[in-house]
C-alpha cells in the first residue's frame, strides 16, 4: 500500500467514523453488555453479580416465558401471512391503471402515518365489545347466520376475552400495511412491460401473468418485506402495551416476549433476566431470518445474478 493509499484509507475511515463510533457505542457495546448482564443477577442499581447460566435455566422452567413465546409465535404465524396477503393484494390492485389511482394510493397509505400509540387507542375503541364499530358491523351478519342456521353466535369481546385478544391485535396490525404496499408498488413498477405484452400474445390471463411474471420478478421485494415483518412481529410491543393500558391482556393472552422483557427490566428490577430474554429473542430472530434466507434462496430472482 502506497503512502497515498494509506492516507486515503485513514481519511475514509475518519469520514465514516461518526457512523462507526455510533455503531460501536450504541449497538455493539449494548449487545455485548446485554450478553454479559444475561449471565448476572443485576437490578440496574446494584452491582451485577455473575450467576452463570442461572437466568437461562430459570427461563427454561418459567411458564410465563413459554407463554410469551407461544403468544409471540402465534402472532407472527398469523400476522405475517395475513399482512403479506393484504399488502400484496392492495399493491396489485393499486397498480391497475384506474381513475384516481393516486388518490387511492394516498388513502391506503395514510393510516400508516398514524403514530402507533394513536393507532392503538383508536383500535381500542374500534374493538370495544359493546360499543365498538367492528362488533356493530358484525352484528347484522351474525344475526342473519343465527336466523338461517338457528345458531347463537355473538360478536366477540375482543380485548377482554383471552380467546380473541390476539386476533384483535393481528387485525389492528393490518391498519399499518401502507408501508409494505408502497414497497410492493415500487417493485411492481419495475416489472418490464414487454414481459406482460409477450404473455398477452401467448394468451395468458391475469392470474397466469401474476404467478409466472409478477411474483418471480418482485420476489426480492417479497423476501425483504417478509423478513422485515418477521423481525417486527417477533418484537411486537407498543400496540398491545397501549391497548391493554400497560398490562398483558386477559389471562396473559397478550404477554409477548418484548412485553415480558420490558416488565422484567423496568417493573420487576430483573435486568439480568430481561437481558436473557433479549438474547433468546435475538437468537430466535437471527435463526428464523437465516432459515427464511436458506429456504427462499432458490426462489428469489435477482435479474440473472
Amino acid at each position, binding site marked *: 500500500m502506497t503512502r497515498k493509499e494509506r492516507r486515503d484509507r485513514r*481519511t475514509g475511515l475518519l469520514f465514516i467514523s461518526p457512523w462507526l463510533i455510533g455503531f460501536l457505542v450504541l449497538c455493539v457495546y449494548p449487545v455485548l453488555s446485554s450478553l454479559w448482564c444475561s449471565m448476572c443477577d443485576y*437490578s440496574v442499581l446494584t452491582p451485577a453479580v455473575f450467576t452463570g447460566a442461572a437466568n437461562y435455566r430459570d427461563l427454561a422452567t418459567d411458564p410465563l416465558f413459554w407463554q410469551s413465546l407461544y403468544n409471540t409465535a402465534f402472532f407472527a404465524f398469523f400476522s405475517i401471512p395475513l399482512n403479506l396477503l393484504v399488502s400484496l393484494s392492495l399493491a396489485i390492485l393499486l397498480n391497475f391503471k384506474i381513475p384516481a389511482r393516486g388518490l387511492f394510493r394516498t388513502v391506503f397509505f395514510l393510516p400508516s402515518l398514524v403514530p402507533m400509540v394513536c393507532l392503538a387507542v383508536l383500535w381500542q375503541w374500534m374493538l370495544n365489545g359493546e360499543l365498538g364499530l367492528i362488533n356493530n358491523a358484525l352484528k347484522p351478519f351474525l344475526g342473519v347466520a343465527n336466523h338461517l342456521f338457528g345458531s347463537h353466535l355473538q360478536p366477540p369481546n375482543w380485548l377482554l376475552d383471552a380467546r380473541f385478544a390476539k386476533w384483535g391485535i393481528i387485525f389492528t396490525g393490518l391498519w399499518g400495511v401502507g408501508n409494505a404496499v408502497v414497497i410492493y408498488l415500487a417493485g411492481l413498477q419495475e416489472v418490464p412491460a414487454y414481459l406482460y405484452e409477450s404473455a398477452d400474445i401467448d394468451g395468458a390471463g391475469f392470474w397466469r401473468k401474476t404467478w409466472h411474471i409478477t411474483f418471480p420478478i418482485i420476489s426480492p421485494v417479497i423476501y425483504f418485506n417478509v423478513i422485515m415483518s418477521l423481525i417486527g412481529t417477533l418484537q411486537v410491543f407498543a400496540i398491545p402495551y397501549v391497548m391493554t393500558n400497560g398490562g398483558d391482556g386477559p389471562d396473559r393472552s397478550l404477554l409477548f416476549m418484548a412485553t415480558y422483557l420490558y416488565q422484567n427490566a423496568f417493573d420487576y428490577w430483573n435486568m439480568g433476566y430481561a437481558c436473557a430474554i433479549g438474547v433468546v429473542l435475538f437468537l430466535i430472530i437471527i435463526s428464523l431470518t437465516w432459515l427464511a434466507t436458506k429456504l427462499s434462496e432458490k426462489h428469489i430472482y435477482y435479474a440473472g445474478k
Partner: protein
Amino acid sequence: MHFPRPIHLCLLAAALALPACQKPAPPPGARVELEYWDKWTGFEADAMRAVVDDFNASQDRIHVNYSSISQIDHKLMLATAGGVPPDVAGVYSWMLSVYAENNALTPLDRMAAAARITRGQYIDVFWRMCMHQGHLWALPSTPSSTALIWNKKLFRQAGLDPNQPPRSIAELEAFNQKLTKWRPDGSLQSMGYIPEMPGYWDSLWGLWFGASLWNGRDALTANSPENIAACQWIESYPKRFGVRNLLMFQAGFGNLASPQNPFFTGRVAMEMEGVWVYNYIKNYAPADFEWGAAPFPTVDPARLKDVALVEMDALVIPAGSKHSAEAFEFIQYVESQKNMEKLCLGQRKFSPLLECSAEFYQKHPNPYISNFVALAKSANARYAPPLTNWTQYSHDMNNAVNRIWTGKADTLDALDDVQQREQQIFERRMARWQRLAPALTAQWNNQ
C-alpha cells in the same frame, strides 16, 4: 492554500463542543438550583408549584425547578443509574422498599432528627410507610385512603335508605341484587356493585376479609384462607351473572376520568375509590349527583372495622443527589403544617400530619374528607406489603383474579399458582438482599 486535515477539524469540533456539554458552574454566592421531579400534572401539579413558588420566594439561597415526569418509577431508576438523578423526587409509596434496597435513595434519619421531624407528628400509618429496613427514606406529601362511595339517587330509586350504606359483604351483595337491572335480551343494564370497577386493587381484596399478602418475615400468603375467601367472593360474580354478561358490561365502561364514568352515568351504583374521587365527581359527574362515602364493607364488620387501603405520595432524595442538604430543606418546608395544608387543599386530599387546622376542613370542598381521614387513622388502615417484588407479586395476583373473573381458573388453583411462583421469586430477592445488606446497612448508618 493549506487546508487543515480532517482529524484537526474533528478535534477542533470536539474541543468546541465539550464546554457546551458541561453545565456552567454557578457564580459564587448564586442560588443552588434543585431539580425536583414529580408525577403530577394539571391542577395537582399547580398545587405543588404554588408551594414551590412560595419556597423560592421565602429565601434566596435555593431555587427549586419543578418538572412533571410521567412513569416516574421507571425514569427515576434510569436517571439514578445514569448518575444524573434529580435532587428531590415525588414517588409512590410502593416504590420505597425496592428503591431503598437497591441503594437508590438517601436515608433521611439524621436530617429528619436534626430538623425535629418525628413520628408523632404524622398519622402513624404514613410514617410507617416511609420506614424500611429500620431507616427513614421519605416524608409524606399527599396521602390517600379508600372508601365505599355510592350513588344516593339510585339507592332511593331501589327503595334503599340513601344514608345507610352496606357494612358487610353480605349486605353489599343484598344491595347489589336490589340495584342490578337486566335488559330484556338477558344482558346487564346496570349493576349495584362490580368488583372490577375501577379495577385498581385486584391484588388486595383480601384486606377486607382479614388477609395479608405476607407474613412479615419469610413467607408470602397469597393462598391464605382469608385470601381464598376474598377470591371466592370474586368467583361468585361470574357464577351469578355469567362471564360474557360481565365482560360485555365492563366493555361499555367509559374512561373513568370523563362523564362516561359508569358511576356517573348510573350504570354502577357503588364502588371503592380513593380520596381523589371528589375531583372526578366535581369535574365529570352531573350537577345533581348525590353521593356518600363510608368504610368499604368487610366480611365481618364486628371483627374488621374501618378497613381501608392507604397509599401515599412521598418526597425522597435520590442517591447521588448533588445537594441533599438543600433538598431536605425544601422537603422540610413542604412538611410544615401550613404548606402541607396548602398542598393537600390544592389537590383536594387530606394532610398526613396529625395536627390539622379547623380552617383546612372548613375550606375543603370534599364534604366527606373527614371520613377519609378517619379511615387513614383507623387501626385497620392497611397498605401494600413493602416487598421488593411487590410489582411482580401484585401483577401475578391481578392476573389470578382475572383468571377467576373470566372463569379460566378456580380460586384454589389460581392462588396456589401465584403462591408457588411468587414465593420462589421472593426467596431470590431475599437472597439478593442478604448479599447486599451488610455493606448497605453500614453505608446507611454512616450517612
